[in-house]
């Protein structure tokens, strides 16, 4: 909810805090509420309700679509960001982080100062955090979600701190929590007083992640619950520190690239994006970025991507540090080169795409794709070759010109005939006489895309006296009440 508010306020005015705002996601029986603000919560709406029900009760409800994928990405980022406090952090549930701060509390001046620092740092990002520092992971999960906003307990008072919390604080599934409620076990304290043997017998067939006894033992520290922290993303960088300022980075590129490729080869990774940064002695730095069509750790190829750009870099009074880093890397297994000495055609093509894109720009190097449309000029689409595989080439049922003029050029009609194309017309100041023609092929405007008032087109393939073959069209019909008399355009040239 808070992330949505921050994102939305960057490009439009966020709705008033006094209004109930909910984020909706699609559920089995229509949209359901996935997040809501405080006003909505005060009105009695809760997450998981259906949007239509809530709207019926509260007509002023403001509904926005939820961005679940964005939330996940943010949480993944936060896992790594929170390693500023300790080396072991992991995701806990959909919106929780667990940090193993054993041994790093004194670095922040004690437990209270650490908790305060965490709250402040999250607040600086526009997020509110509920924190709890406990000896076990399960207790932290329960206290942070159901206890006070900032709480702390030592190893001796864990059971006392957990006792007043509801049983669902242990992380039980709704079914198990409801079952415990029916049994009269409303709080963790109630649960702890039940004899273990009867608990074990009653819940023997439940999985460990949903078993109240195991979860309780984990929360109270009787069973270990280790933290499985995801590894830090690897960062590949090669540096060249120079003793004296130099003006031309080219001689150092080969060594830098080899260093980087050695590091990549050790990790069995290949670079997809590269950044070369040049640090000038006056404190300025210049970066040049390059991308590759497929993961590569070929030093010569990576150097060639930067070939033409290095002469454009302004060296100022010289520079003394060059770094080459792989900003994005992908797994690339070691492959044996082919025994017959032939080169791998796919690798050759990927290398060609990289070089062409690096020099000419991403939008100039493209594969054709065909769009689902009738308009001839819209059928032939293009996608950047570096990012997409080549699309399937479709053939249209009718003959199409080999070259298309875009936009179509108007021709001047000299002799019009009632049916068919003009018998004489002038295009680019040359007079042509129609010898033969085929057509018409009528292409109607696409009402779902075109502006209202767009006129239909009748296409003719026209052959003129000397042999040129043109694709002419008449825009509109006489008396279609969409503008004046129809005009003629030349749209393409047949081979």
């Amino acid at each position, binding site marked *: 909810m808070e992330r949505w508010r921050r994102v939305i306020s960057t490009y439009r005015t966020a709705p008033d805090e006094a209004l109930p705002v909910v984020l909706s996601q699609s559920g089995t029986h229509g949209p359901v509420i996935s997040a809501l603000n405080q006003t909505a919560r005060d009105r009695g709406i809760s997450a998981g309700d259906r949007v239509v029900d809530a709207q019926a009760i509260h007509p002023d409800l403001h509904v926005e679509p939820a961005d679940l994928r964005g939330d996940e990405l943010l949480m993944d980022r936060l896992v790594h960001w929170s390693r500023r406090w300790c080396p072991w952090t992991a995701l806990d549930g959909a919106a929780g982080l667990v940090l193993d701060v054993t041994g790093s509390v004194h670095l922040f001046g004690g437990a209270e100062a650490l908790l305060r620092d965490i709250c402040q740092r999250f607040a600086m990002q526009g997020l509110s955090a509920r924190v709890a520092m406990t000896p076990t992971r399960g207790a932290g999960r329960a206290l942070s979600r159901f206890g006070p906003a900032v709480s702390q307990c030592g190893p001796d008072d864990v059971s006392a701190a957990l006792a007043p919390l509801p049983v669902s604080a242990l992380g039980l599934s709704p079914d198990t929590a409801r079952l415990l409620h029916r049994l009269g076990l409303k709080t963790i304290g109630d649960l702890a007083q039940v004899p273990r043997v009867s608990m074990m017998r009653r819940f023997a067939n439940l999985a460990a992640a949903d078993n109240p006894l195991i979860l309780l033992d984990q929360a109270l520290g009787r069973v270990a619950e280790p933290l499985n922290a995801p590894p830090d993303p690897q960062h590949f960088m090669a540096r060249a520190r120079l003793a004296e300022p130099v003006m031309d980075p080219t001689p150092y590129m080969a060594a830098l690239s080899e260093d980087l490729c050695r590091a990549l080869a050790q990790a069995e990774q290949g670079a997809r994006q590269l950044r070369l940064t040049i640090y000038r002695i006056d404190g300025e730095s210049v970066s040049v970025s390059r991308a590759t069509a497929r993961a590569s750790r070929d030093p010569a190829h990576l150097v060639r991507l930067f070939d033409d750009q290095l002469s454009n870099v302004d060296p100022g009074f010289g520079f003394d540090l060059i770094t080459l880093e792989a900003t994005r890397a992908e797994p690339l297994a070691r492959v044996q080169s082919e025994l017959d000495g032939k080169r791998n055609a796919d690798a050759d*093509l990927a290398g060609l795409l990289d070089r062409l894109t690096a020099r*000419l720009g991403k939008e100039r190097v493209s594969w054709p794709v065909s769009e689902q449309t009738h308009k001839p000029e819209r059928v032939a689409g293009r996608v950047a070759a570096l990012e997409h595989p*080549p699309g399937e*080439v479709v053939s249209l049922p009718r003959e*199409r010109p*080999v070259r298309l003029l875009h936009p179509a050029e108007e021709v001047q009609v000299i002799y019009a005939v009632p049916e068919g194309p003009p018998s004489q017309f002038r295009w680019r100041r040359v007079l042509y006489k129609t010898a033969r023609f085929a057509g018409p092929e009528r292409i109607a405007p696409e009402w779902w895309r075109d502006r209202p008032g767009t006129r239909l087109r009748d296409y003719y*393939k026209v052959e003129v006296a000397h042999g040129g073959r043109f694709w002419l069209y008449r825009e509109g019909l006489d008396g279609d009440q969409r503008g004046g008399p129809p005009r003629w355009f030349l749209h*393409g*040239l047949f*081979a």
Partner: protein
Amino acid sequence: MPEDSLENARKGLSLYLPEAKPQAKAVPVQTIALTDLLPARPFDPAATGFALASLPQGREGPVLWVQDRASRQENGQVYMPSLKAFGITRPVLQIMVNHPRDVLWAMEEGAACSALSAVIGEVYGAPKVLSFTATKRLALRSEASGVPVFMIRAGDPGGLSAARARWRVGSLPSTANPDNRQAPGAARWDAELFRARGRAPGRWVATYERDASNSLRFLPRADDGTLAQGDQHLSHRAG
């Protein structure tokens, strides 16, 4: 007929041309290395069709097509949905640049990459960068890698070039349409080979066969510009 050229013809890498004089022997023209295509008239797309029709069959890999801005504006963009009519089902890597210098650079990169099946480049007019040296570099690279390179030089009066074959191609009135007498039929081109390595120049009427062979067909041409009598000197591009 030399052995190696027969072999090339089987791979679809050379064009078989009948002699302009019907008595002489047919001599192949290699399409490996640089081939220049000059349109006979302004805005005439016959050279494009001729290049598409003479692309070698049976080669894997995409076709690289490079256009500069002037040829896009003057002659129009290549319209990809039409290429299947020329039997081209390979993807076409399309490059649109502004300056002829970049066209030549991209063509050189492509000519050195043996993963491509052909390179087609278009340069409008006769810019200074399109010098004899530039074409020679292209021709040598193409010969080294075995990738055929076609250069469409629209608006060029016929400057120097190191191309192994130079054609001037113009449109001719199409054949009779079997279904409709009023409609144009299959395209025919007036193909003049005005410079070639290892053979005499000549002038033919070229057509494209839309059958299983997907081949370019050359018919001898009478001096008055009409077709010579008889089709006995048909020649196929072996596929």
